[in-house]
């Protein structure tokens, strides 16, 4: 009996120990499961967050897709516009090239007109000089006034500050000084026809003009204009120093020399003819 009781106690203890161990295991399992549940909850939260993020990304992606589509449409529209503008630009460029060429032609034409206008102005001015000289020389029959006019022409139109007017003395074969300005008259009173550049010009009847830079010619003589009537020399104009601002003779001066060569001689001849006629009238 006692053995049965001992066996029973051992069995109870064994059951108790088994139960205790099972309970321990169960508790451990429950704890493990609790930890698992906690970790799964954390994971679920993280997955929820990830899901939200993905959803946000998806909706952002949708918006981007819509934007991309609208951008593509805009790009297509702009591309078409670029094509149109390029065509327009090409048209404008060719128009611009045409207008540039036309402008260049117009500019060249305008320059041509300007230079022609300047030429005509110069010719006008030259003609005015010749007209004034001619008009003034033939505007009087008074010898003194013709001589004054000649000096004024030399000073104002030619631009000299030293000049002398000579008349031919055929008997003495010399040129005699009639009037002068800027010169010492005594030093130029009489010039033999055989003497120097002045005499030589009077002898030949050819206008002499000193070339610029040719050096000093006979006391600064810069030009000599023989006065001629019917091809015969009747006197001469000697031009010495020019005004400081006048560097040399121009084409208009040479034309003026040609005019003076005949018109001055004619004007002087007319004054002497007129004086003779007046003297004859007085005698009558």
């Amino acid at each position: 009996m006692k053995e049965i009781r001992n066996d029973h106690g051992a069995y109870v203890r064994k059951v108790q120990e088994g139960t205790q161990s099972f309970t321990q295991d169960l508790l451990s399992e429950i704890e493990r499961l609790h930890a698992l549940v906690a970790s799964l909850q954390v994971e679920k939260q993280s997955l929820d967050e990830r899901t939200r993020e993905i959803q946000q990304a998806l909706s952002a992606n949708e918006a981007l897709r819509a934007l991309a589509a609208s951008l593509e449409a805009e790009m297509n529209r702009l591309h078409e516009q670029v094509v149109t503008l390029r065509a327009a630009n090409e048209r404008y460029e060719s128009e611009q090239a045409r207008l540039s060429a036309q402008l260049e032609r117009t500019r060249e034409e305008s320059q041509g007109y300007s230079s022609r206008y300047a030429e005509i102005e110069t010719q006008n001015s030259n003609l005015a000089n010749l007209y004034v000289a001619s008009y003034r020389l033939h505007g009087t029959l008074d010898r003194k006034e013709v001589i004054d006019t000649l000096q004024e022409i030399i000073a104002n139109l030619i631009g000299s500050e030293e000049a002398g007017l000579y008349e031919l003395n055929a008997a003495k074969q010399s040129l005699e000084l009639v009037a002068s300005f800027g010169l010492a008259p005594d030093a130029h009173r009489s010039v033999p026809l055989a003497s120097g550049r002045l005499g030589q010009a009077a002898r030949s009847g050819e206008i002499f003009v000193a070339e610029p830079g040719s050096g000093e010619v006979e006391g600064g003589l810069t030009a000599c204009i023989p006065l001629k009537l019917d091809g015969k020399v009747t006197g001469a104009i000697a031009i010495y120093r020019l005004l400081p601002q006048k560097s040399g003779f121009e084409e208009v001066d040479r034309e003026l020399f040609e005019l003076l060569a005949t018109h001055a001689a004619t004007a002087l001849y007319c004054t002497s003819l007129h004086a003779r006629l007046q003297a004859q009238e007085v005698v009558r």
Partner: protein
Amino acid sequence: MKKKILCVDDSKTALFMVTTILKKGPYEIVTAHDGQQAVEVASSERPDLILMDVIMPRMTGFEACRELKQRDDTKTIPVILVTTRGEEENVENGFASGCNDYVTKPINAQELLAKVRDHIAS
């Protein structure tokens, strides 16, 4: 209305030359033969511009210019002097007398017309 220019020179040829040039423009020309007469004509005619030679009898261009610039009725009229010599001293004397500009002899028609246009316009 044509602008009036008083041309002053004792040389008939020089005077004829400048009037021939200026008549090409839209100008009415009046003339005087010396500085004294220039002052009188300027006072009575009230020109828009005076073109005056420097070397003249009775009153030189410098003297006449000084006189014109002192008188109330003529002091605003621009004066262009015509100088025979274009050296600096001569030009300085011209400006000291009150002239507005100068041209040198022999007169260049284009230069003269340009200066006249400038002074009349201003």
